Each structure stands twice: as structure tokens, then as C-alpha cells.
């Protein structure tokens, strides 16, 4: 910082005119971004807060109703059902993805594993393809008359109903697809984390006679804790915003059993056009995500583990 000050003094004589010019230059550089952020980010953000205090309907009028939307929300069984659905989704997807991703990272970080790059690429592949488009394939795969999932399960003696038409099986199907999409992505972050652990620590543990399991528990787990927290938090944030595969596979059905908060915002806002009410739901969603994001920021800045 001191150096930056000194440099500025060297190149820019310390006159008011020059300082003003420098400030002008900086803001000209930032003008396009700030304009876009202002018009399409901050203004809508404030507008959403205002909308949530009105009974705005896209085709009707708009009247200020104070906190009535939020009060209605608390008494709305739909909201609670969808909040529970969202937590169910996040509560399964996150731990399963994190554990699977860690297991895969350990497997594919093995020294001398042939074809390591190919395996990593294959497992990472779902992260680069469109979630909506791949969910179409999943929707067909879960459909009994065309997909093989029900058929193959029946072959080995497991009889399941039509997944996407069943109140109890639709959510697990959507969850499986959610895990499929992200596990490779989290695996790659874990591999990067594993590679930051100094090899000396494992060697020291080996010399002390630690078994492979002991080395995993006493070296890998503690030194990877920051990465694990980071992955857990970004997975929770992504889970709270689940939408794509649900829209494609079930549209929130059957009987709203897979409707999450974002799908509820979509339905209330763009199908029922209750945009004031939908904005209130969106603000609740934002509050949940912001709380998690603050955690994320903490772990992001501390990702370089001190040994």
C-alpha cells in the first residue's frame, strides 16, 4: 500500500487537477460495468424489495400493503412445503455429493493410477454440459417405457413405480440428477486441496508407523477441512437454488412433491403473475443464500491452509 502511494507520487504530481483527472480515468474505466450493474443488478434488487411490499400483479395494479406478503408467507402451507422440499433436497444432495466427491478425489489422486486423466475428465464431464439438456435425457431414462433404469432395477428384483409420477420417488430422482451434475466439479476442488498437503506430513506419519487409515484420519481430514467446508457451503448455496432439472423432469410435481423455493418463485411470478408475493419469496431465498455466502467468503479467504 505504501509502495502504491509512493508510485502514484512518482508518476502523478500531487496536484488537485491531476488527482481529479486520475479519478475521472478510473471511473471511465469502470463506467460500462457500473452502468450494467446499476441498471440490471442494484436497481432490480431494490425494486424487488419494494415489490415485495406491494400486491403487484403483472396485469393488474399495484398497491402498497406493507409486510402483508411476508405475513401471508408465514401462514402459507405452500411456502412451508416448498421450504421443506428445498431443505430435503439440499440436505441429501450436499452430504452425499461431498462424501462421494472426496472418495473419488482420493481414488483419482492415487500415485501411479493408469488413465487418471481420462477418469477425471469423465467424472467431470457433467459439469460442462447443460443441466437442462442432460436432465431431458434423465427424464426419459426414468420413464418406464423408454428408459432402462426401471427395467434394469426390475431385472435384479427391485420393483419401483414410475419415478417421476410418484410422490415419494420423484424427489430422489431429482436428487440423483443433482448429485450427478456436481460431484465431478467438487471432486476437482478436493483434488486441488489434496495436492496442497505437503508430502512430508505423510512421510512423517509413515515413519511413526501410522497405517493408511490413520494417515487419512489424522493428516488428510484435518488439512482438508477448509476445502471440505468450502465445498459444503457452495453445494448448499447451489442446492437452495435448484431449478433446471426440476423444471425439465417434473415441473415441481407430482402433487408439488418436487417444488422448491425457486420453482415456487417461478410459478407465482411467471405463471400466476403474483409478482409482489413472488418477490417476497425471492427475498427470503436471498436471505438464506446470503447467510451461507458470508460463510463461503470466510472459507474462501482462508483456503490457503496454514501448516
Amino acid at each position: 500500500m505504501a509502495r502504491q502511494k509512493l508510485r502514484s507520487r512518482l508518476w502523478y504530481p500531487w496536484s488537485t487537477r491531476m488527482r481529479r483527472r486520475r479519478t475521472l480515468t478510473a471511473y471511465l474505466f469502470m463506467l460500462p460495468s457500473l452502468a450494467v450493474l446499476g441498471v440490471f443488478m442494484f436497481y432490480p434488487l431494490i425494486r424487488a424489495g419494494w415489490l415485495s411490499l406491494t400486491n403487484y400483479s403483472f396485469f393488474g395494479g399495484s398497491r402498497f400493503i406493507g409486510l402483508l406478503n411476508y405475513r401471508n408467507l408465514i401462514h402459507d402451507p405452500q411456502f412451508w412445503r416448498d421450504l421443506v422440499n428445498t431443505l430435503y433436497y439440499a440436505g441429501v444432495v450436499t452430504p452425499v455429493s461431498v462424501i462421494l466427491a472426496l472418495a473419488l478425489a482420493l481414488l483419482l489422486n492415487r500415485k501411479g493410477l493408469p488413465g487418471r486423466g481420462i477418469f477425471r475428465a469423465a467424472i467431470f464431464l457433467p459439469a460442462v454440459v447443460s443441466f437442462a439438456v442432460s436432465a431431458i435425457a434423465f427424464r426419459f431414462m426414468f420413464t418406464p417405457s423408454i428408459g432402462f433404469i426401471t427395467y434394469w432395477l426390475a431385472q435384479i428384483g427391485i420393483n419401483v413405480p414410475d419415478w417421476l409420477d410418484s410422490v415419494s420417488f420423484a424427489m430422489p430422482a431429482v436428487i440423483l440428477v443433482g448429485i450427478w451434475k456436481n460431484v465431478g466439479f467438487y471432486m476437482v476442488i478436493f483434488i486441488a486441496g489434496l495436492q496442497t498437503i505437503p508430502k512430508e506430513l505423510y512421510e512423517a506419519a509413515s515413519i511413526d508407523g501410522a497405517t493408511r487409515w490413520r494417515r487419512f484420519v489424522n493428516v488428510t481430514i484435518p488439512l482438508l477441512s477448509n476445502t471440505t467446508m468450502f465445498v459444503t457451503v457452495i453445494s448448499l448455496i447451489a442446492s437452495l437454488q435448484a431449478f433446471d432439472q426440476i423444471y425439465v423432469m417434473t415441473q415441481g410435481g407430482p402433487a408439488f412433491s418436487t417444488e422448491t423455493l425457486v420453482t415456487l418463485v417461478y410459478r407465482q411470478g411467471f405463471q400466476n403473475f403474483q409478482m409482489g408475493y413472488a418477490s417476497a419469496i425471492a427475498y427470503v431465498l436471498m436471505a438464506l443464500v446470503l447467510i451461507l455466502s458470508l460463510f463461503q467468503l470466510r472459507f474462501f479467504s482462508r483456503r490457503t491452509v496454514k501448516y
Partner: protein
Amino acid sequence: MAVTLSESTSRGRLARQPSSTKRRDAPSRFGTAWAVVMATVASLVIVLPLIWMIATSFKPEGAIVTSHPSLFSSKLILSNYSGAWSAIDMPRLLLNSTIFAGGATVLSLTFDSLTAYALARLDFPGKNVVFVLVLITLMLPFQVNLIPLFIELTNFHWINTYQGLILPRATNAFGIFFLRQFFLSIPNELEDAARVDGAGDLRIYRSVMLRLAAPAVLTLGLFHFMYNWNDLLWPLIISSNSSMYTLASGLALFTGQHVIEYGLVMAGATMAIAPMVIAFLLIQRRFVESIATSGIR
């Protein structure tokens, strides 16, 4: 992060000794074989849906709708592709996705890097305020803005237009943050040398910063392109006219309406994911590395 990563690995490599510990650490042949089996199974399970998608796109409808669904059919046809080309209007979807993702990427890279330059290399009042605003934007779920944005763009008469689709994506808080970190790491000496030669800020931005950051800018561009190409919710809301649908929204809506033509839809889906899959396979190493170090998707 990238620096710490390489430092610690090289430190580890230097310290590794060919001593008795090596024997204990050396992977056993049985263990390796077991690991290969596990990795093969995991990879196949993950790739299976995509393989099924591609395989189905070459099957006649009769082989798709059957009481004994199998992965591959004995009869392969290409007519699903020509069918998708006309029935789903794939050329239009491909064009729209390319304009949307390409336009958003080019604008966002330009705007992000300009802002990142100011935040990283210039000194001005209000700098911290701007940076905090960027960080806040980074944390907001974009669904919050969906409804007011829709109303705003309706008032602009920008629904079903490319500018309506692209401009709200013309800057990206993560891009600004990512490039700022990169520009901060560029040594002052290079900038000083350029200033001695009489270069202004715009020239330093272009010929020093952007040139040195070219790999980072390219990686970021790839992320921007992928993010927009794959996005569903935003194009779904901003276009109500089939001539403005992107691949993701167009295929999702087509599937909702015509569930009978499975082969057609799978052919369309294969064409929709092909560009990303090919791009990924071509530059996978850098792709995976930069994701690992930055933690973005």
C-alpha cells in the same frame, strides 16, 4: 491460490527421499488394480446418461419405446438428426445460443477487465466502495432480480430481443473479482517501464495487462460462454417467442410439449451439448486446473 499450490507441491517433491518410507508408500499392484476397477465403474456410471442420450439419438422410435429397453439398438438411423433440424428448428436455437453466449462473453470480458484494471492498478476515492459492491453482487442469488428485471425489460420493450437477453449479462462480478486478483499479481516494474515510454492507462491496460493476463482472460471467457450457453432460467423468462429460444430453453419447452418424439429430442440434445463437450475435451487440463484453483463453475 495457484501459487501456494505449486509451491507446496514442489516443496513436497524436493523433500521426498528415496528412503525406507518409499516402500511403504509405494502403491501395491493389487491396490492399483482395485483402484482402476473402481474408477472405471464410477466413470461409466457418470457418463452412462450421456452415452444413452447419444445412442438413443441414432435409434428408430420402435427401438426406443419398447418393453426391454437396451443401451444400443441393432439398427442405427440418422433421420432423428434431420428431423430435429427441421422439427425443433435447431439452426435457430444454435444461432440464438451462439449470439447470446458469444455476445455476453465478449461484452463481459471487456467490461470486467476494464473495471478490474481500475480496481487493481489505479488509486481513486471510492475504490473500496466499488469493490464491496462487486463482492455483494457476487453473493446475491440472481433469482432475486428475475421479477423486477422482467418488468424492467418489458418497459424497455426488450422482451424477445437479443439486447434484452445479453445486456443484463454484460458484466459479471466474479469476472471482475477474478481478473482483479490477476492484475494485482502483475509486477509494477512492467507498468513503470511502459509509463516511462509514455504509455497512458488505456495503453497499459491493453498492451501490458491484457497481454499478460491472456490465459486468465481466455479461461474466464470459456466460463462465461459455458455459463450462458447452458443457462435455462434466464432465457426461459426473457423469451416467449420460439424464434428467440436458446438451446436449453427451446429443448426444455419442446420436451414439455411433444414427449412422443424421443429420438428427435435426443438428437437435438446431443447437438446442444456437443460444442461444450468438444471444447472441454480439447482443453481439459487447463479447464480443470483453473476450476480447481478458483472454485467456480
